[in-house]
């Protein structure tokens, strides 16, 4: 008995002190590429947020150019009515980065919620259902009556309902988000989205896309662990956004990063016209770096003359190296057109 105990305890201590002896290597070596391009071989597993193709539940590729124009109908006075359904939930566990599982709170099952798009002057009706376990609301930035603000009209958990109804405006890009306190918690878990109001006269035809700048504090220590444009860290770094040369690109950028007071956007290879909040048709700046405070947003317009890969990222390098970076891959437009490939809304 004593001998058995002694052997077991020695074996256990030995295992603790010299684990290497007990480690048996995998047969097939794996390979990964570092940020600087070196190729490294390992007998174990690769921990790589960038270069491995991941099955992501949320597809940033799809979200990028996905606009929800609602169910469209016309009222007797000629006003366009756009109806949307948004359901809030707060029990989903999502893989926000390869291997990292986080409890996201969602509008229509995704973070960010769907990009709601209407034209200035349209009547917007949003049928909101709260299927979560907590109280939630939707607070739209923009013009609306006080009782449509989503602040005092708390929508109860487990199927509470509310219909937000207002005339879309002003033209520009706005966020929407849950406004139940603690707001930081409700936004931090993912209850936000983009609301685009197109001017009546429209904008110039362009390849349009949405970038929601967001972050996740996965260990609740008051600092974001991950940053991204459109939720998944490094996604566009690994899957470059395909664009055409000599075609206008329009990016609707909204910053919903909590905990950090500012975020920013930096573009490589060219400069862009910047329209703060998108409310004015005349750009305020021609630049390649814009600073965004929380909920600050704007429209970027630019085009590439030359083909190739151009980075875009937070110039706060901490954010970019924790996931908020990506690449535009500019291809020859004439070639693409021959393939019958077209962008835009």
């Amino acid at each position, binding site marked *: 008995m004593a001998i058995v105990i002694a052997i077991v305890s020695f074996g256990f*201590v030995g*295992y*603790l*002190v*010299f*684990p290497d002896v007990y*480690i*048996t*290597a*995998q047969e097939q070596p*794996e390979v*990964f*590429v*570092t*940020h*600087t391009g*070196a190729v*490294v071989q*390992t*007998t*174990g*597993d*690769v*921990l*790589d*947020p*960038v*270069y491995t193709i991941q099955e992501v539940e949320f597809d940033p590729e799809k979200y990028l150019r996905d606009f929800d124009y609602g169910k469209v109908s016309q009222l007797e006075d000629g006003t366009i009515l756009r109806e949307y359904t948004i359901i809030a939930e707060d029990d989903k566990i999502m893989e*926000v*980065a*390869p*291997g*990292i*599982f*986080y409890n996201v709170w969602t509008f229509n099952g995704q973070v960010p919620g769907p990009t709601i798009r209407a034209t200035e002057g349209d009547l917007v009706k949003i049928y909101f259902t709260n299927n979560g376990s907590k109280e939630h609301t939707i607070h739209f930035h923009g013009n609306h009556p006080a009782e449509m603000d989503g602040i005092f009209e708390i929508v109860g958990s487990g199927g509470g309902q509310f219909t937000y109804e207002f005339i879309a405006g002003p033209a520009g890009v706005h966020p929407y988000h849950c406004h139940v306190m603690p707001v930081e918690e409700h936004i931090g878990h993912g209850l936000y989205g983009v609301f685009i109001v197109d001017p009546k006269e429209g904008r110039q035809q362009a390849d349009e896309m949405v970038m929601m700048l967001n972050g*996740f504090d*996965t*260990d609740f*220590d008051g600092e974001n*662990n991950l940053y991204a444009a459109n939720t998944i*860290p*490094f996604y566009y770094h690994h899957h470059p956004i395909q664009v055409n040369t000599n075609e206008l690109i329009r990016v609707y950028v909204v910053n919903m990063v909590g905990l950090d007071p500012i975020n920013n956007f930096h573009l490589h290879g060219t400069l862009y016209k910047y329209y703060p909040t998108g409310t004015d048709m005349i750009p305020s700046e021609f630049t390649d770096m814009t600073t965004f405070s929380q909920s600050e947003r704007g429209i970027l317009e630019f085009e590439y003359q030359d083909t190739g890969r151009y980075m875009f990222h937070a110039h706060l*390098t*901490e954010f970019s*190296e*924790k*996931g908020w970076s990506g690449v535009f891959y500019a291809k020859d437009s004439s070639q693409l057109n021959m393939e019958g490939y077209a962008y835009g809304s």
Partner: protein
Amino acid sequence: MEVKRSSNVKTAVSVIIPFVLLAIMIGYVFGPGSELIGYGVVLPEISIEKVEFVDSEIIATVRNTGQISVNIVMADINDRIYPAAIEPDKHLERFESAIVRIPFEWNEGEPYAVGLTVDDGTRFEKQVDVAVPSIQPTVEMISYFAVIGTYVGIIPVLIGLLWFPFISKLSRSKYKFFLALTIGLLLFLGISTAEEAIEISANNLSDVFNGVLLVATVAVVSFLALNYVGEKLRKRAGASKLAGPVAIALMIAIGIGLHNFGEGLAIGAAIVLGEAALGAFLIVGFALHNTTEGFAIAAPMARTKLMIGKLAAMGMIAGVPAIFGAWVGGFSYSPLAAVIFLAIGTGAIFQVIVSIMRWIQNEEGKLSNSSVLAGIAVGMIIMYITSILI
């Protein structure tokens, strides 16, 4: 015969029954379908035990020190995410450990924080004060550490042994004083060894190991084991006047050897951790300090005739472990191994103290005479003063 066998069976059954009942209870409480202990949230916990800097790579040794298994999913340096590899695999059961290799062009002399994130998004960090190239066990480095171990361990102990003729000429009461002085020296060493073990466990071991209790348990077990061995040794040697002192000196040498192993560890680890200045101080300090250890070995043998061979052998037993310590500390530093070795050393030293006291009592009658008490006090004071130099 029959009766005896059946009583044996009865005894065995009576031993087993409580275990069976305990197993049934544990099965009922924790087993499948049990809802009794379903409350609370168990959080994952990992410890980064070691960080090494090699060519274009930072290597972290990580252990699952929580109550549930975890997956390591992300690595970062200074809070910046990097592609990395984990060997043998990213899934860690309780107490399992793995090596995380993070390709990174690090700069010598700069501080770095190594972070690992587990699957629920919790990030764990280890701060390294100074990045220095990890030392590879080349022939050159092996001999370098051997030379340092010799300077720290062997030479000072042998120098200390040169007091032998002086001690052997002393009067009875003065001799008692010096023997007691040895107790003081060892008392100090024992306390400092325990302190070091507790310090390492506090700084480098996860709470799950219960550092102080680990040290206490290992020290007590080693004390008892050496006590048993010592007793056997003495019995076998009989009441011979010669064997007694030699046995005690031998035990002192073994105890001091274990202690010097700890000193070697400290020096090796300091050099590896890039604390070159600390390493140099440790070398000088330990060298001065260890001269007194030679004295401690010489003292009990001073009443016997001079046996240079035995004396030198004991000097080696006490000194050589410093070289092994420097190798282990320099090449494969493991905080857990260090704590265990130091705790064994603590037990060994206290066991030696008890042996010397018993010996003085047998030889001289009583312990509480003035020269014995003064000797212990002076011994501790000498050690304290030499230890300030470290």
